[in-house]
């Protein structure tokens, strides 16, 4: 429910968001929604598995609204956020596996925000281009005097970069936003396709992209991976500290070009490494085949109708269907009784 997503916000914000998500609805409906928010918020907090924790930002508001000035401010003042960001960026850079020759590279930071991850890149001597959709976060980045160049851009619209110019890309906690439809014009599948397609194009051959993300569920992870594979990437998901609820971090490690020994996945931290490399590769193959079944933004009403229709057709198994099946079996060389006038005829009820 949309109303659930409003709950944690102040009244002004929620109004803005409501209009954005449902342009055709009236303000009166938004006001009515607000009456329910506190009650629903409490209920959701009770229901939320991890007891009283704030929900992920993705379910609260679109990124350009969620990361307002006050939220962006946290990225300069909270030492905890700064430390976590720095640690994830270090790890992402490690997974990027750039050649260790001391030559600075041209990197891309997708969803650079306040430039915290970029700082890590600068410390390692690399040049970088950062893009983010939140103006407030970029203002903070300017304040922090980020060394890289900043772009105000939406990754779901595709990265506007020339082909083959970037030596590597990292992204910290950003790509899961692509799974949301924050505006009526947003279609997550198209946005994911545009993003991964443009990322593949702008990377140099053999370059890597390491995208750290927080997936809501397994389906979302599968969807991200399958779109990456369809864009031409090789690779998979590396999960660090899989047994810890807080320290667990997922990285989508992608390599431009065909799969080979060089594109094998690095080992995850905090486990024996059995889940991350071999199993994930298998999963990826499945995703390629079954990606048409992926669902995001398809709501129950439409889907069940479709299913019912299909079932109805199947249930009408008349004589034609039976004859067709028998013909099929005959072609396969099975022994099939001959077609007679009794074939496919309904039994009498007294039987």
């Amino acid at each position, binding site marked *: 429910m949309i109303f659930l997503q409003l709950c944690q916000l102040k009244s002004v914000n929620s109004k803005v968001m409501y209009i954005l998500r449902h342009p055709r609805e009236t303000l009166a409906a938004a006001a009515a929604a607000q009456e329910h928010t506190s009650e629903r918020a409490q209920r959701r907090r009770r229901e939320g598995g991890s007891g009283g924790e704030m929900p992920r930002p993705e379910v609260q508001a679109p990124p350009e609204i969620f990361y307002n000035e006050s939220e962006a401010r946290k990225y300069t003042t909270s030492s905890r956020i700064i430390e976590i960001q720095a640690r994830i960026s270090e790890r992402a850079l490690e997974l990027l596996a750039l050649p260790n020759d*001391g*030559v*600075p590279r*041209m990197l891309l930071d997708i969803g650079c925000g306040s430039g915290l991850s970029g700082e890590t890149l600068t410390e390692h001597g690399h040049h970088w281009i950062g893009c983010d959709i939140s103006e407030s976060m970029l203002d903070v980045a300017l304040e922090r005097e980020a060394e890289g*160049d900043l772009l*105000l851009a939406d990754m779901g*619209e595709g990265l506007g970069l*020339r082909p*083959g110019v970037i030596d590597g890309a990292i992204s910290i906690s950003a790509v899961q936003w692509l799974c949301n439809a924050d*505006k009526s014009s947003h279609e997550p599948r198209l946005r994911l396709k545009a993003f991964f397609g443009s990322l593949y194009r702008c990377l140099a051959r053999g370059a890597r992209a390491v995208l750290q993300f927080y997936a809501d569920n397994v389906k979302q992870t599968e969807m991200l991976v399958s779109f990456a594979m369809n864009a031409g990437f090789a690779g998979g998901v590396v999960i660090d500290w899989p047994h810890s609820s807080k320290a667990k971090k997922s990285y989508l490690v992608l390599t431009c070009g065909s799969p080979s020994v060089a594109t094998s996945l690095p080992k995850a931290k905090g486990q024996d490494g059995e889940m991350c490399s071999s199993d994930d590769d298998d999963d990826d193959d499945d995703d390629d085949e079954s990606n048409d079944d992926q669902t995001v933004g398809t709501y129950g009403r439409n889907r069940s109708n479709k299913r019912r229709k299909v079932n109805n057709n199947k249930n009408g198994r008349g004589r034609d269907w039976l004859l067709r099946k028998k013909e099929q079996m005959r072609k396969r060389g099975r022994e099939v009784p001959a077609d007679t006038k009794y074939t496919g005829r309904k039994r009498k009820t007294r039987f």
Partner: protein
Amino acid sequence: MRLLTHNFLASNVRGVSTGYPLALEVAKSSIKEVELNADFLRGILPKLDWRALVAAASAAGFPDLLAAEQPQEAELFADGAADAEGSAIRRLHHALLEIHVDEGALVCPDSGRSFPILKGVPNMLLHEDEVRH
């Protein structure tokens, strides 16, 4: 925004085939000195579009900074060139990494769409009807 980034940027508007190079309009620019790294330049050289770089440099107010044709690698990376004042590699370094465009605009060559640059950050956000999906 440095001219290096400008050299990589392309327009993403619907209906545009290449969208490159973006015309640069400079209202305000600044110079920030950084250390020269010949290895980085060597790696970046094959990826550069030289003509777009020359055009961008002259738009930023340095029409004579770069040669019209891309210099040979041997000339650029000759011994001692990195320390010699006014050498080709120094000028390339200056153009790529030291000139910052603070205010201005990027104009798509095909559609004429203008992307404003504010506080050194180009606004590449598209309107709903410009997104190519």
